[in-house]
């Protein structure tokens, strides 16, 4: 068979910000840094804020994590042209506290999939970027095929944010009793 093998992953390391978020690394190099634009004014949809932390197996916040967010628009549609709401963000936490903040719009449901944000985490000590999802506590998640694939009902909770009225909190646990469900997808 004439297939190639995927290039193996390596950790993004502690200095991932130099490449993907240079302003956070402390210098100014690009005219336009990608992934940090606010949602443009004309884009329809409810404005929401998500805060949270990524927490390691010792209970400490992962302050050097970089998260990418990918989401549908308010009607549940994923962007396929540069004119659309892009639906993609980079999120870097405060280096002192590890708390991140994302300002976006609430995505719509896509088919049977309940509204969710897809998240991809990279950091020092993470050898392959971790995929997960954030669902909303105030949405109907009952028929969601991904949540329903999780065998242990209590682990589904790890993918559902807390909060309401457009202000949500979502902590991601890399290990421990509250370990987040990560997706091999």
């Amino acid at each position: 068979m004439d297939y190639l093998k995927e290039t193996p992953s390596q950790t993004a390391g502690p200095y991932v910000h130099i490449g993907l978020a240079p302003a956070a690394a402390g210098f100014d190099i690009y005219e336009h840094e990608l992934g940090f634009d606010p949602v443009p004014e004309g884009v329809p949809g409810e404005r929401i804020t998500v805060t949270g932390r990524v927490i390691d197996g010792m209970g400490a916040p992962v302050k050097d994590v970089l998260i990418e967010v990918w989401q549908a628009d308010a009607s549940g549609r994923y962007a396929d042209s540069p004119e659309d709401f892009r639906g993609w963000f980079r999120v870097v936490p405060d280096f002192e506290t590890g708390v991140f903040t994302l300002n976006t719009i609430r995505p719509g449901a896509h088919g049977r999939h309940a509204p969710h944000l897809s998240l991809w985490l990279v950091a020092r000590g993470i050898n392959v970027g971790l995929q997960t999802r954030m669902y909303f506590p105030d949405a109907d998640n009952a028929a969601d095929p991904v949540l329903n694939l999780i065998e242990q009902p209590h682990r589904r909770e790890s993918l559902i944010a807390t909060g309401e009225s457009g202000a949500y909190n979502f902590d991601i646990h890399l290990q421990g009793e509250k370990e987040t469900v990560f997706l091999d997808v």
Partner: protein
Amino acid sequence: MTLYQRDRTWHPPALAPDYKTSVARSPRQAMLSLDATASELSGPRFGHGDIAPGENDLITNYAQGGDPVGERIIVHGRVLDENRRPVPHTLVEIWQANAGGRYRHKKDQYLAAIDPNFGGCGRTLTDENGAYAFRTIKPGAYPWRNWVNNWRPAHIHVSVFGHSFGQRLITQMYFEGDPLIAHCPIVKSIPDPRAIEALIAPLDLNEAKPLDCLAYRFDIVLRGRRSTFFENRPEGN
């Protein structure tokens, strides 16, 4: 359509105890495996309006009136998928230390000097054949806190998107002939020596520019797409 499953035995495992930071940062539960859905098959699109010309030239993109110190090199290659299809118009971003092994990052305290003319990052879009190229200087090896005397081989960090969020990949490119590769716990987190080989860029003398610049070749392979010939499930799952 969906993505080929990721061969998790080819990638490094989440827990690689000799790379100490992975111990507290590696999930312990089994991941939830599922076919890619619309969320992973779609992905962000980037265009020429997103980046400026010259951002792929690390020799000039941060220069403050001089050239950075170090060995001038071109790093080039193609982004392909597992079906050998080129991945056109996709964003490739790189970052690296300077020739002395020092990063321009407020958290890097290594005693090697910052180079005033070197930023250490670049980005570009692949062309219609999936080809990309950067000009830069060869990064230096640097020490890091793991065991008491660990040194990273010279490397360039590489981030690639592909056309699906499920293809998203970050890796590191190493240089042919570097004796530190064999000693690095991060490299050795990859179990299969053939997989390590795929991260070592060979010298490409044909693309070196006489009296100017050496060249290294680094091809990147992203997950392939499977056609679903007999689809049972409704669209949108």
